[in-house]
């Protein structure tokens, strides 16, 4: 069975060019980049080259790039670096819709003597900038706001927020894991102090991430050890993955970001046709300011896990904001923060596309999805009444 993969905000396939670039470092070029001998030392030079490519994608200088093991490590490093650099400040501002990498750490910090303001979003998932502004104070060590939401794709106005925050001399971190490689990022113009990226969301392998740290930002390492990454992150480099990430960033800059115009057309087609064919369905989140590859659609009166498993029968891979898929009993914190009614949140499905999706993929989903919803609704004790109300 063919796999139709539309779950790219969860993870993405390794680009063939990326794998090719990595292979030598998994076979004959196994030297340690810190070595004095050229067998290892030249690997160090190749890492330098990868660093330049990553920096170029986001408008940074190469020495502002720190390689980590994943997006979560980048987020943790940024948050702890800011808190440790300003030990007298005990306040953090973040949002209610962050990825667990930021959200759960901030919740933990509330038990360790920090105050955290979780800024709210409206029904469209847009951030309440006024609330954020009101809570900035002399006690605020850090503002951490995701650039775009992983579930809905809603993009926050990072440049505007960065300006507000940096005016007050507060460190500004953004989790850009879903953004890099999808929309243009220019850390200098956008004014962020620290920015997190993840390799496996942009066609590099799992197990490698990036933290951009603006020159002049106070910093302390999270993983203390050797002198690697200029003392900003101990541990022997994950060479092959770093080389792969460099290649992926180069591809993103030269091809993928441009291809997002086509990806967006596919996303828009998927979304508009599904909404047209399926009654009682709506898009979660602001459709204007949104990643080009993401759509979260709520199908009322059906449950997400059932939809996903029926899609799975056709090889279609998507994900859901439903409770049942996560093992928890409540639907996603993002949809709840937006005030999406439980009845719709339980039936929300996220499709996230990539450069590898084709028109055929979209047509296939458009063909399979409506009968699945219809079938599940025909089984539901609520549907007849809802359908009757629709007729009126």
């Amino acid at each position, binding site marked *: 069975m063919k796999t139709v993969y539309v779950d790219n905000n969860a993870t993405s396939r390794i680009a063939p060019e990326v794998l090719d670039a990595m292979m030598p470092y998994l076979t004959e070029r196994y030297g340690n980049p810190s070595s004095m001998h050229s067998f290892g030392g030249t690997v160090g030079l190749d890492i330098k080259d990868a660093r330049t490519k990553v920096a170029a994608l986001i408008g940074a200088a190469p020495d502002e790039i720190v390689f980590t093991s994943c997006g979560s490590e980048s987020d943790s490093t940024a948050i702890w670096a800011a808190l440790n650099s300003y030990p007298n400040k005990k306040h953090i501002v973040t949002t209610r819709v962050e990825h667990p990498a930021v959200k759960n750490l901030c919740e933990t910090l509330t038990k360790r003597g920090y105050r955290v*303001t979780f800024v709210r979003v409206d029904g469209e998932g847009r951030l309440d900038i006024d609330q954020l502004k009101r809570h900035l104070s002399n006690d605020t060590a850090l503002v951490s706001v995701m650039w775009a939401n992983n579930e809905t794709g809603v993009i926050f106005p990072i440049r505007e927020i960065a300006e507000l925050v940096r005016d007050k001399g507060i460190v500004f971190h953004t989790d850009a894991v879903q953004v890099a490689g999808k929309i243009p990022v220019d850390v200098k113009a956008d004014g962020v102090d620290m920015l997190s990226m993840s390799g496996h969301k942009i066609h590099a392998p799992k197990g490698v991430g990036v933290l951009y740290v603006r020159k002049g930002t106070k910093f302390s390492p999270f993983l203390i050890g050797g002198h690697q990454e200029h003392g900003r992150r101990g541990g022997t480099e994950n060479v092959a993955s770093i080389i792969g990430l460099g290649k992926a960033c180069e591809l993103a800059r030269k091809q993928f970001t441009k291809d997002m115009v086509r990806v967006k057309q596919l996303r828009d087609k998927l979304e508009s046709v599904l909404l047209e064919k399926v009654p009682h369905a709506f898009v979660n989140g602001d459709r204007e300011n949104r990643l080009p590859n993401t759509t979260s659609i709520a199908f009322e009166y059906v449950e997400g896990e059932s939809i996903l498993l029926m899609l799975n029968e056709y090889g279609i891979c998507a994900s859901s904001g439903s409770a049942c898929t996560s093992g928890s*009993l409540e639907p996603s914190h993002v949809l709840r923060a937006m005030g999406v009614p439980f009845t719709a949140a339980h039936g929300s499905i996220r499709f996230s596309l990539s450069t590898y999706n084709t028109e055929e993929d979209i047509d296939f989903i458009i063909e399979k999805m409506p009968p699945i919803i219809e079938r599940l609704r025909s089984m539901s004790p609520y549907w007849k009444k809802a359908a009757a109300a629709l007729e009126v």
Partner: protein
Amino acid sequence: MWEYTDKVKDHFLNPRNVGVIEDPDGLGEVGSLACGDALKLMFKLDASGHIEDVKFQTFGCASAIASSSALTEMIKGLTLEEAAKITNEDIARYLGDLPKEKMHCSVMGRDALEKAIAYYRGEPDKKVEGEIVCECFGVTDREIERAVRENHLRTIEDVTSYVKAGGGCENCHDRIQEIIDSILGTERPAAKKPAKLSNIQKIKLIEETLEREIKPALQKDGGGIELVDVDGNTVMVRLCGTCSACNASQVTLKNYVETKLQELVTPELVVEEVA
């Protein structure tokens, strides 16, 4: 990904007996849209008192649909006395087992069957018995006690897996623990407040404390208080009634309202009055 057995997948993808029986002899409805799953079970008896036809409608995940389908197959042809003996364990066993987190789907099947039988016999609704413990999912102490006894549950997590209780705001975790302890016959040291509160839990607890503790006290003096917003650990309130004009209102706010909230919710809270 859940590790569903082939039998669960089969009953999910090819559910048996989906539909409606007009004018059924037995009818049981459990669950709700908000809870994430619901089951409507209907049956018709033949002249000899055996279940002749049975149909269901389910809103829910794969295991909810599979449990409903399995239940209908299991009870077809049985007398009501025989059907009444079916437990949630039987449903899970029929399906070759369910992931533990999904056991509440089999309990939902059993509950719907009981309701349908009670409907036929003209018995009052059993569900209203007992006191609601979990407000998020409307689960009573009796239901929790029964699940603990019948399935030998030992932890709050177990209880959540079987009857959903405690799976929302978690405010009822102490009470669930008490029920487990009383059944297992082991007393534990005084229950403490949950160590970590999520933002939603905190807001809920603040609301409850205001309603239960603070409002009644202020009302005695003809005053009132309204929760406007909670932002991090800042609780924004509006005073009304006599409180709004009272010179001592700031004292009330800091010495009574804030202290009470700090004591019952979390010590970090700060109360602010907004116009």
